[in-house]
């Protein structure tokens, strides 16, 4: 029930985001071009959700912003899922001091207040360390990389715990006796058996990443305008609350829906596993 509701919501959002160019064609507008004559226009036939402080269509910007926000979420899930699984497996397999060091690092990262550190990391001038700056794609990659730096921790802890439980099973011993190499053992035997809890952790990390990206963008450190993201659409909203309170509602609602959908999917999968 939860799972299907979550998947349906996600599907809806994904469809909207994919269809963004079509919607743009239908309304014949450019969501990046300011139109100062129609600032804060109320919802109408040409602007279903009205316009923002620069006269750009809010619905189109929401759809385009969704592309950014969802791709950050997906990128973080892939990165954190991959890195976390690798680290968790390594810790469980190697044991001893490798395990101890990796888990202490994870503990340390978990105990730190993440947002202040994210703010520091996001404020780095990528131009100074030889990376391109200011383009939409490099912004997405920059934010995703930073979020993966914190996001691998829960995945790694889960993967380690699940893998440790598997290593005690007889089939592992049987595979070893049959002469399977350690790499084959990990990839072909342990990994498929711990995939489900890892999937739950990844779904949760998508939710966390969308929230974190929107927070950073809201603070002006994430995705830079004119590229819209759900977070940076709200960064001007505080000054607009007197002119156009409705403009502050939609982007937040989109974030809420996306994060709820991911949480529902994670919850649903977890219930199925029980």
């Amino acid at each position, binding site marked *: 029930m939860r799972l299907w509701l979550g998947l349906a919501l996600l599907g809806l959002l994904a469809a909207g985001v994919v269809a963004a160019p079509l919607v743009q064609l239908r309304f014949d507008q450019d969501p990046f071009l300011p139109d100062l004559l129609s600032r804060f226009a109320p919802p109408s036939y040409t602007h279903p959700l009205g316009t923002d402080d620069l006269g750009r269509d809010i619905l189109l910007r929401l759809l385009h912003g969704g592309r950014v926000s969802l791709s950050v979420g997906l990128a973080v899930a892939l990165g954190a899922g991959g890195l976390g699984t690798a680290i968790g497996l390594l810790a469980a397999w190697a044991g001893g001091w490798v395990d101890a060091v990796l888990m202490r690092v994870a503990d340390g990262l978990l105990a*730190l*207040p993440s947002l*202040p550190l994210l703010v520091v990391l996001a404020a780095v001038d990528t131009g100074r360390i030889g990376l391109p700056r200011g383009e939409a794609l490099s912004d997405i990659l920059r934010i995703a990389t930073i979020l993966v730096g914190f996001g691998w921790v829960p995945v790694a802890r889960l993967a380690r715990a699940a893998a440790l439980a598997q290593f005690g099973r007889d089939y592992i011993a049987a595979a070893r006796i049959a002469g399977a190499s350690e790499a084959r053992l990990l990839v072909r035997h342990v990994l498929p058996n711990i995939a489900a809890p890892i999937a739950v952790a990844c779904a949760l990390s998508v939710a966390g990443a969308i929230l974190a990206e929107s927070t950073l963008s*809201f603070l002006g450190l994430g995705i830079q305008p004119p590229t819209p993201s759900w977070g940076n659409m709200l960064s001007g909203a505080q000054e607009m*609350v007197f002119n156009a309170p409705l403009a502050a509602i939609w982007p937040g609602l989109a974030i809420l829906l996306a994060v*709820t959908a991911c949480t*529902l999917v994670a919850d649903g999968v977890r219930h199925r596993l029980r």
Partner: protein
Amino acid sequence: MLRLLIGRLLQIAVTLLLVSALTWLVMGAMPGDPVDLAMMSDPHLTPEDAMRMRALHGADQPLLQRYLAWATAVLQGDFGHSRLFAVPAAQVLWPALGSTLVLLGWSLALSALLGLLLGALGATQPRAAPAVDALAILAQSTPTFWLGILLIILFAVELGWLPAGGTAEASGLGDAARYLLLPVTTLAIVNLAAYARHSMAALQAELGADYIRTARMKGLPESVILWRHAFPNAAIPVVTLFALDAGSLVSGALVTETIFARPGMGKLIYDAIMGNDYNLALLALLLAALVTMLATLAADIAQRLLDPRIAT
């Protein structure tokens, strides 16, 4: 217990050292150091002046050497000057910490209390459980900054009951409470979700246990069974949650303080980073990390005191 304490304090010290070194490195890569800013604001300065300024402040030294000099000074109690506020950094730091602790304390108390009540409701009334669950998922998925803006729109703009931000100028208690109400509510609602979900799950598990059946058989009233028998046992995971969650509380404070313009640690860190106030940013960051880790440690110890089964 003593061994645990010493081990954890050592871990905290090492973490702080690593964080300070890492932040030092990262800040070197942030745009605009103070000399750059001085150059930009005064057209009469020549590149030679910039060189001289850099040499005067030791900014031409290698990164490692500068870090060591800074760390030595801090360990000797010299926290340096704040560029943004033009006073010693410690002088801005302590009032900000106080402001944040007030905000965190109230919102933590509120979210724990409401969360526990919602959890108890869901655990005792099975029909209410899905509603509590749904509410918790929604609250957890709400971006803090958006919730803050919504509350401002509703209570400050539309209804005009409460101030949209800032702090009270007079030191009256009622006035301070008016300014605290919206930020505390924002932070409490976001954090409430986890407490409600965890206490509901824990209470549900406890209420099915054998000792509860025994208590019912003795004829104890339901309220005594719930609060005197089941609740103390269900409280342990809630304390654990606090231990795991102290960091996210501080993170939430950064957003809340920025939106409501409260001069706390979170806003201080944000302003200091945006204003290239390296001394202040580093110190505030380290202090926030230290407070978070100490809170985590305190919750860990409380958990061990509550539950003797956890080996010390």
